[in-house]
C-alpha cells in the first residue's frame, strides 16, 4: 500500500492555474512531494534526474505535448516504468486510444475533484494510505 506522503509526483501542464489546481488536489489527498513542469521537454528533464512515482500530464502543450512526453518516458532507460496519467478534455476519445497504445496507465478528464483524482491514482498505484 503506497503511502501518499512518500509519493513523488510530477505535474505537467502549460497552464499555471491548472498546475496549481492539480497541486491543491494532490495536497488534499496527502501527497507532499510535488514537482511541476510546464511542458513535455521540461518534464523530461525533471524525469531524467528525479526519481518519480507518478507523472500527471496534460496533452496540449507547446514544445512537447503529453503524448510525446509519454512516448519519451516509456522509451527512457530510467523513467520508463513511471506510471503516467494523462489529463484530457471531455471528448478526447481518440487521444485516450493513442495514449493507451503508447502505454498510459490511466486518464483523467478535466475538470476533476480531489476524490476523482485519488480514485484514478489508486487504480494505478493501489490504495493510498
Amino acid at each position, binding site marked *: 500500500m503506497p503511502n501518499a506522503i512518500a509519493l513523488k509526483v510530477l505535474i505537467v501542464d502549460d*497552464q499555471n492555474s491548472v498546475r*496549481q489546481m492539480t497541486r491543491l488536489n494532490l495536497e488534499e489527498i496527502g501527497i507532499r512531494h510535488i514537482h511541476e513542469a510546464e511542458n513535455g521537454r521540461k518534464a523530461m528533464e525533471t524525469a531524467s534526474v528525479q526519481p518519480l512515482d507518478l507523472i500527471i500530464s496534460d496533452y496540449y502543450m507547446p514544445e512537447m505535448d503529453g503524448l510525446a512526453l509519454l512516448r519519451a518516458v516509456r522509451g527512457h532507460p530510467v523513467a520508463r516504468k513511471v506510471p503516467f496519467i494523462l489529463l484530457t*478534455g471531455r471528448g*478526447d*476519445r481518440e487521444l485516450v486510444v493513442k495514449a493507451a*497504445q503508447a502505454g498510459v496507465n490511466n486518464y483523467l478528464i478535466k475538470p476533476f475533484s480531489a476524490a476523482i483524482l485519488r480514485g*484514478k491514482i489508486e487504480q494505478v498505484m493501489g490504495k493510498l494510505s
Partner: protein
Amino acid sequence: MASLDQLKLTFFDECGEALQQIEAGLTDIRAGQGSDETVNAVFRAVHSVKGGAGIFGFEALVGFAHVFETVLDGIRRGTQEATPETLDVLLAASDVLSDLVQMSRDGASVPPDFGSDCRNALEQIIAGDHADKGAGEGENAIAPADFDEIDFTPVRVDQMDSGPNLADQSGPDAIASLKSFAITFRPKAEMLKKGNEPLYIFRELRKLGDFDLIAEMDGLPPLGEIEPSRPYLAWSGTLRCAASRAEIEQVFEFVAGDCDLEIVEAVPVIALSMTETAEMPVSATPEPNYPAPAPTPDATSDKGAAAAKVSTPAASVAKETAPVAGAAKESAPAASVSRAPSAKPAATTTRIELEKIDRVVNMVGELVIAQAMLGQIVLDLPEGTSGRLSQVLEEVRHHTRELKDSVMSMRAQPVGAVFQRMPRLVRELATKTNKKVRLEMAGETTEVDRSIIERLGDPLTHIIRNSVDHGIESPADRLTAGKSEEGTIRLAAEHRGSRIVIEIIDDGAGINSERVLKKARERGLIGADAVLSDDEINNLIMLPGFSTAETISDISGRGVGMDVVRSNIQNIGGRISLKSERGRGMTIQLALPLTLAVMDGMVIKVGKEIYVMPLSAIIECLRPARSEISNLIGTRGMLQLRGDLLPLVNLGDLLDIESATTDIDETVVIITDAGEGSRFGIVVDELCGHQQVVMKSIEESYGSVPGIAAATILGNGRVAFILDVEKLSDLAANSSFGAAYSSKAPLDVKAA
C-alpha cells in the same frame, strides 16, 4: 498554499495571455502569415481557456470555447479550410470569448443567448464541414460529450510492462483492440534437433505487436556440461497486440509438440469494446472531425488482421483531407517566414500582489527623500569636512536611483495590454462604417508603469476611433485618391529617453485645415484675422468644444472630443502632438512619462516659496537681458527669443506670492511648453537645482488646486508643491492680464 480565488486570478491572467495569442494568431493567419504552428498555438490557447474554465466552473465559457475549438481543430487537421470568411467568424469568436472571460472574471451572469450569433456561425462551419466529409455524424455533434463509459482498464503499476510501444509500429490510425497475452515458452529437448530456432519464433511474435521477453535461466548447467543441441532456456513474456489467440498459436505451429506452451490472455490494456462503442449515440460523438472510431473486431475472432483493415477507412479520411491542408498552406505563401510564431516561450515569473509592490515603491520614495535630506545636511557642513561623506553619499544616490528603477520596472507592464483591445475595435468600427482598415502594431512589449497603462486605454481608443471614423476614407474614395482600398492604421510604442512615445499613424485623408479654421472662427476660438501655421490649425481640433464631424456618427462626434484626450494625456504628465498632411494621413504622437510616482523636477524659488516644476515641461532656462523684454501690458511682458516673441508670466503674480522679486535683472525665465506647441516663459526668482521628487497626491485632502499637480517633500523636510504647467498657462490666460494672449489660441507671433 494558494486559495481558490487566487488560482482563479491566475487563470484569468492566463486567459488574457491566451486571448492575446488567439487574436494575434488569427490575425496572422488572416493576413496569410500563419503557419501550421500558428494554428496549433491558437488551438492550444482556446483549449487552455476551455480547460481552465472547466476546472473553475465557468460553464458558459466552456461551452463556447468548445465550439470555437472544434472549428480550429478542423483547420488544424485540414478537414476545414481556413477561408477569409471562416477567419472572420473566428475573429468574431475571439471577441465573444474575450467578453465571456471578462464576464466570468467580473462574476457577472452570462445571458443565455450571449454570443449565440457567433456560436451559430461556428456551428454552421462545423456542419458544413460535415457535409463535405459526408460523414454521418448528427447535427448535435458539437455538444460536449463525456466518455467515462470507455472501457479503459487502468494499468496498475505492478502490471506494467515496458519496451517499445505499439503505437510507434502501427501508426496513429490503428484504432484497435489491444489484448495482452502472457506467453510462457519452454522448449523440450527435441526442439532444436528438429531445426527450430526460438529466435525466429520471437521475431514472428514481434511482428504481431509489442513483445516483451524474459529468459528463465534456472535450467542452465555449468559451462562444461552444456550440450549444444539441447535447449536449456525457457522464456516468458508479454505480447500486446491486436492479434487473436489463434494467430499467436499459429506462430508456434511447427514447434507445437516440442514445447510446453502457455498462452494466457491478460487483463485488456484497452478495449473500446464493441458493445460500448455501438451504444454511444452517434450524435454525441464529441469531435466530429475525428475519424469515426473504427469498429473493434470481435475479441474471439480468429481474423486478427481485421483490426488493421477496419482502421483503414479512418486513415483514408485523413489522407483525403490532407490535400485540403496543403491548399490552405499554399494560399498563405508567406507562411511562417516573416513572423516569429505567436507562441511565446513562457517566462519565469512570480506573481506578486500589486499592493506589496506599491509598498516597496513608497519605501523607495521615502528613501529618495531621506537621501535628499542627507544630501542637504552634507551640503551644510563646514567646508572641507564632508569629503569622504560626499563620496559615500554619491554612491547612495546612485544605488537609490537603481533601486527606484528596478522597483518601477516591477510595476511596469507592456503596453500590449492596452494595444490588444485595438484590433477588435478597429474590426468593429470598420464593419460599422463599411471601410477596410488594417491595423499594424509595433512595440507591444514596450513597458510602462501600470498607472499609465490604466489611463492610456480611453485616450487611445478615442484616437483610433477618430482615425477609422474620420481619418480613413471609404474604399471608393480611397481608390479615387489613388490609394489602396484598404486603409492602414499603425500603432507603435517605443522608449525614448525617460519617456514612452506612442504613435498612431493613419494613411487617411488628414485634417481639412480650411474647415478647421472656418469652424474655429465661427466658434470664436480664434480671432477673425489670426494668422496661424498649419500645425497650429491642426492643433485647434484639440480645443474644448471643437468637433468638425459634419454628422454625429454612432462612433465619434458625441462632443467628447480631442480636448478630453488631450487633458487625459496631460493629466498623466504626457504630451500630445499632431501632424497632418492633407490627403496623406495623420500622425498623433503621445509622449508619456514612464512612471507617475517619482519624477525629475526643477526646484525653483519665488519669494520665500519653493516649488517644483516637472523637468519634462521645461525647454530651457535663461536670464534674459533687459533689452530682450518688452513690457506690453502691466507687469506682463514679452520675451524676444531668437526671433520669436514669447509671452511671459510672472509666477509670483500668478500665485499671489508676496516679496517676489520684481527686478527683471534678478529673475530667471523658464521657457516651458504647455502643449500643442505653445511656449511661454515663466518668471521665477531663483533655480535651486534639479532633483528627483516623489509625487504625493494632495487631491484627497485639498481637492484639485488649479496650477498645482501634487506635492513633494524636499531634502530639508519642507513640503513643496509641484506645478502643473499646463494649468498655469490656463490660469495666466484667464487672469485679468491674460487678454493679450491666450493659451487656448496658441499665438506664436512671428517677430516682424
